[in-house]
């Protein structure tokens, strides 16, 4: 066990990435760490990729509507599921063990000051990662995220301060998909799926972490100015 822990790679003279594997970590704890890293990056510190899983939690992005929570707060509370209101783009989502959550934190100025371009880069990374498992991921016109057939496998939402990006991607690897019945994911009428559900066997989380880092490096290296 253990995974990636602290790797480091150099993308160019301006962006040195540290990869930090946080394992299973409470949402709030990781959120506070993200805020701290955003400040460090703003002050010229190394870029960071945080990899983690969260205990079951519902997060409400800036565009989230309360009616997209399909259970009462009391019922969710009884099941140990917290609700967090946060400063990421997008609607409602759910994190749970078995979902790889990745928070890339770096200054987009080193690449391109373009919010939608960055979201498309994240989609490219995820589509390549899915292809490694023989899965054909696709974009849905007018939407952000990655779909497999008519189901959504990956959700994303970001925040940007002084062109430093944070928040990121949730990739369902071995997630208990029943948990998504608590919400209307992203406010859409869509069923969620996972890598293990699609290929019919469980998948090593560490393998997915390593693949994400590999494709992240590849996609951004090819796009350095």
């Amino acid at each position, binding site marked *: 066990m253990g995974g990636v822990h602290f790797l480091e790679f150099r993308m160019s003279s301006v962006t040195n990435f540290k990869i930090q594997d946080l394992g299973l970590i409470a949402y709030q704890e990781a959120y506070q760490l993200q805020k701290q890293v955003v400040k460090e990056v703003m002050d010229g510190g190394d870029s960071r990729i945080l990899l983690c899983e969260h205990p079951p939690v519902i997060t409400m992005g800036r565009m989230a509507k309360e009616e997209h929570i399909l259970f009462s707060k009391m019922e969710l509370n009884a099941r140990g599921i917290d609700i967090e209101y946060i400063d990421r783009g997008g609607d409602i989502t759910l994190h749970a063990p078995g979902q790889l959550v990745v928070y890339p934190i770096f200054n987009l100025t080193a690449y391109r*000051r373009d919010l939608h371009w960055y979201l498309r880069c994240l989609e490219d990374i995820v589509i390549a990662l899915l292809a490694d498992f023989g899965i054909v991921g696709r974009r849905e016109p007018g939407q952000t995220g990655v779909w497999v057939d008519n189901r959504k496998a990956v959700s994303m939402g970001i925040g940007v301060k*002084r062109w430093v990006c944070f928040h990121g991607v949730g990739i369902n690897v071995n997630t208990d998909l029943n948990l998504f019945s608590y919400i209307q994911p992203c406010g859409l009428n869509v069923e969620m799926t996972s890598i293990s559900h699609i290929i019919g066997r469980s998948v090593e989380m560490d393998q997915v972490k390593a693949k994400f880092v590999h494709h992240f490096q590849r996609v951004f290296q090819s796009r350095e100015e």
Partner: protein
Amino acid sequence: MLEICLPELGEGIEEATIACYHFAEGDSVQADEDVVEVVTDKATFNVPADQAGKISRLCFKEGDKAPIGAPLVIMEASGA
């Protein structure tokens, strides 16, 4: 008088939705402090004040769409 305008957010992005103002009219802000947060697609973006000052007007309401380049906040520079 200072204007904090909605900057370019990327190719083909013509507008953004005001998610929230971090301050009210009459509040003082420091240089580099985030004043307003906007949303486009699945991204939030914080727009900071270039200089310290006092906010005289918030030009939009939360939920409004603002075009790129539009003034979001009018401020009086402090110590001017």
